[in-house]
């Protein structure tokens, strides 16, 4: 008998629909307004911190829904937004500077769903409010800096190598360095010397005793990559400092960086932090000065009092040996005794200065000072946030030998600390200026409204379609409606499962459009069945033929739409990308539900037995 469901179809549909329903489920639970608390600089939030906060909350009459400490991060949930905001202020006061608090909408997914990794769909900025920045790395300046650095490096290399030269000049327009000499011998010597040092450069001899050093294509590419990658690191660090739950810092194209900060409304503040420069300074420890008397307020005139990260006071000389903008690279590794260390590379000028300064200071202590500009709650006359300069000694080390362009800092506590320090050092030196080319702020109320608008539109779209299908195709139409409903569940389940899929307002329009597309497949099938019935076939044959013949057409017509969705995904950013994602996924889910799910029900209801009349 035709049109009987195989066990496989049952299994497939039950498994697919079961799983997607399960993963779609978290979307039904509303989010909790919550506070996310992290410690700065790799420290952990401890149970002690939690108790301290709990006490403070109780005193203020704030009752958190829950407070969970996990992976060094504390998540405190509240019943409403007012409590959340009050709690943030309180937490900032109680915890001070070593912690970052961020407002968050934590999904209230029940534990058993959480355990299987189910989470609600990620909402785009247009649905939850926040700031979106598109930043462009100023490549021209970055490359100019590289050329100029090279000029400095070559001059000192030639001097050290005792090669006489007439001039070393930068040709920034062509990304080249021109070196001119007095004799052919000097030129040859320079060429041997320099090409031996740097294999990424190509050297060509021009007329009148000039040597042209040009970056190789590979090197130029690497420099560009570096500039963007490093800026992303810097921005990521700073974003973490602002205290944003679920920030997004992502590269877009060759020279752009997308930064999305959900929940942030104060763009001015965000912009200032992202644009602010954190930097490093190296200073000698003032060993002549008396620390105790300095603490009592009698600081020597040529010294300055600092504190290190453990809060211990350090007396440093006022004179800065070297500033952090000369750092061109930093990474962590291990020394001979497998102790963690940080390797630092300086540019040519920095190398010279440093070598001079350390020559006379062997055996003495040198401190590394980390300087950053942190936002405060105060605002100036124009309403802009005032930034506070924060200086902190991150490391004190004894100079073992004269230091040159590359040196290392030992005495770091742990490999993690070394890694962190290297990161901070790298992050301190901004390789290329950043320019904000796109900025979008979406208010939280607008986000909420957009969710309501989108949900309403989807609901009405569904109602209209369902009513039409029921009236026009009667019983079989209702089966199509069942398939349509499963499609929406499946799509939401898949959207919740796929990492990186974000629901946006256009994405909701995409879901709506998918409803139209899903019904298209059922219309094709139903029309086909009607035709077959008209051609005088039996009900069972008509169903069988209808599904089989329509299938090729359905795939044919959907493949092209899928193709367009892919192109759109490549083109779009933000909201439109969300549209492309729902459209593409919707096509796949709709084929499954329209063909397989609806067939299951049609077979179940009318298949495998003698039916005189099909309600279609």
């Amino acid at each position, binding site marked *: 008998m035709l049109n009987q469901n195989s066990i496989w*179809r049952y299994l*497939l549909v039950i498994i697919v629909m079961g799983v997607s329903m399960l993963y779609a489920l978290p979307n039904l639970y509303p989010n909790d307004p919550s506070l996310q608390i992290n410690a700065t600089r790799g420290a952990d939030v401890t149970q002690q911190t939690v108790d301290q906060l709990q006490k403070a909350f109780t005193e203020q009459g704030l009752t958190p829904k829950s407070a969970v400490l996990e992976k060094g991060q504390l998540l405190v949930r509240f019943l409403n937004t007012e409590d959340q905001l009050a709690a943030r202020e309180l937490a900032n006061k109680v915890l001070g500077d070593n912690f970052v608090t961020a407002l968050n909408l934590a999904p209230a997914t029940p534990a058993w769903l959480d355990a299987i990794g189910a989470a609600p769909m990620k909402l785009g900025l*247009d649905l939850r409010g926040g700031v979106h920045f598109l930043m462009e790395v100023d490549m021209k300046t970055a490359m100019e800096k590289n050329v100029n650095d090279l000029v400095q490096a070559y001059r000192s290399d030639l001097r050290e190598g005792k090669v006489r030269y007439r001039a070393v000049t930068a040709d920034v327009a062509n990304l080249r360095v021109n070196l001119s000499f007095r004799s052919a011998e000097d030129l040859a010597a320079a060429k041997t010397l320099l090409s031996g040092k740097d294999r990424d450069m190509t050297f060509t001899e021009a007329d009148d005793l000039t040597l042209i050093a040009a970056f190789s294509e590979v090197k130029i590419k690497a420099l560009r990559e570096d500039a963007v990658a490093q800026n992303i690191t810097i921005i990521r660090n700073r974003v973490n400092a602002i205290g944003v739950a679920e920030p997004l810092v992502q590269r877009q194209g060759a020279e752009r960086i997308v930064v999305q900060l959900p929940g942030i409304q104060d*763009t*001015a503040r965000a912009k200032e932090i992202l644009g602010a420069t954190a930097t490093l300074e190296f200073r000698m420890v003032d060993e002549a000065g008396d620390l105790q008397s300095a603490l009592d307020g009698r600081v020597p005139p040529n010294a300055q009092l600092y504190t290190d990260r453990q809060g211990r006071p350090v007396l440093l000389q006022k004179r800065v040996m070297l500033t952090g903008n000369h750092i061109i690279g930093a990474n962590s590794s291990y020394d001979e005794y497998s102790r963690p260390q940080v390797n630092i590379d300086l540019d040519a000028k920095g190398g010279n200065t440093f070598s001079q300064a350390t020559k006379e200071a062997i055996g003495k202590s040198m401190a590394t000072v980390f300087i950053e500009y942190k936002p405060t709650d105060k605002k100036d006359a124009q*309403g802009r946030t005032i930034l506070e300069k924060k200086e902190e000694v991150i490391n004190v080390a004894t100079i073992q030998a004269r230091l040159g362009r590359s040196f290392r800092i030992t005495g770091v506590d742990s490999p993690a600390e070394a890694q962190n320090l290297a990161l901070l050092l790298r992050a301190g030196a901004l390789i290329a200026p950043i320019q904000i*080319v*796109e*900025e*979008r*702020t*979406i*208010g939280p*109320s*607008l986000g909420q409204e*957009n969710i309501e*608008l989108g949900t309403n*539109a989807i609901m009405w*779209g569904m109602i*209209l*379609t369902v009513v*039409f299908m029921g009236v*026009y195709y009667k019983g079989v139409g209702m089966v199509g409606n069942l398939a349509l409903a499963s499609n929406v569940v499946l799509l939401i389940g898949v959207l919740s499962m796929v990492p990186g899929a974000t629901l946006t*307002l*256009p994405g909701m*329009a995409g879901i*709506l*459009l998918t409803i*139209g597309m899903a*019904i*298209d497949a059922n*219309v*094709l099938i139903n*029309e086909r069945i*009607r*035709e077959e019935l008209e051609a005088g076939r039996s009900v069972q044959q008509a169903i069988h033929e209808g*599904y*089989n*013949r329509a*299938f*090729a*057409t359905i795939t044919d*017509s959907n*493949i*092209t*739409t*899928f*193709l*367009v*969705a892919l*192109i*759109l995904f490549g*083109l*779009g950013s933000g*909201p439109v990308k969300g*549209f492309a994602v729902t*459209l593409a996924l919707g096509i796949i889910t709709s084929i499954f539900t329209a*063909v*397989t799910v609806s*067939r299951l029900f049609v077979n179940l209801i009318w298949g495998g037995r003698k039916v005189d009349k099909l309600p279609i």
Partner: protein
Amino acid sequence: MRLLHFKEPINFMRFKWPAIVFSTLLVLGSLFAVFTKGINFGLDFTGGLVVEAGFEQQADLNKIRDALADNGFPDAIVQYFGTTTEVMIRIAPREDIEQAGSQIIEVIQKVEEGTVTKRRVENVSASVGDELKEDGMLALLASFIGIMMYVAFRFEWRYSVGAVMALVHDVIVTMGLFAITGMEFDLTVLAALLALVGYSINDTIVVFDRIREMFRKLRDATVEETVNDAITSTLSRTTITSGTTALSLVALFYMGGPLLHGFAAALLFGIAVGTYSSIFVASSIAVFLGASREDLLPEVIEKEGENTPSL
């Protein structure tokens, strides 16, 4: 219940020439509108600043305009956005645009009673906008080429030319609508146009699939008769799916809020035009280019669908 169900094939090919002429005129007219009147590109494409401000009561646009003009924003475009308590202000790209967002809110706050809320501020540089325009054109082009190749592979080049010309027609005419009405053409509208391309090709492919099937079934019929037969038998499906999609879009147009108005409008109109072009234009061009039975039926006759396993 059955709509548009015909016992006898309708002679669509009789309208081949009128349809081609009508569509050509439509395309030329749209192009004329696009080039003379221009398209009112949205912020995404032009760059500049958009501020959406929310008011506690109905906002007085003239008062806002005057206040902005007095405070260094003479070029500000001020209009209601969705309701009369929401106002959209747009200014062209300029030097000190970074601060302009908060300045505008401040200026409005001074002249309006109640609290003015900053609902949305978007600031796009002109260079990003120009790039997007270029990328958008490329994306459209890429989708045309992709579809052309797919249809040529599944059917034959004459059909693929017909299909893609119908798509180009749909896109140009929809852009014409935006030029004539002056509706804002933003990134979501571009997304709608691309979705339209994907959607409109569906109808055409369904018709082509049926043409192939009919060629196989009706051995003695002429090409035109076969095409008529195919279009007639798929007519009901074509209009019904367009109808149900249109229903969803009507819901989106009325319920989806002002941000998706352009999107819904473009798709609604585009689907109407696309349905017409799938019925009257695509096949007509294929027939005009000399599509024949042999093109779609190779010596070895493979029965479409028969061998395709159903899920």
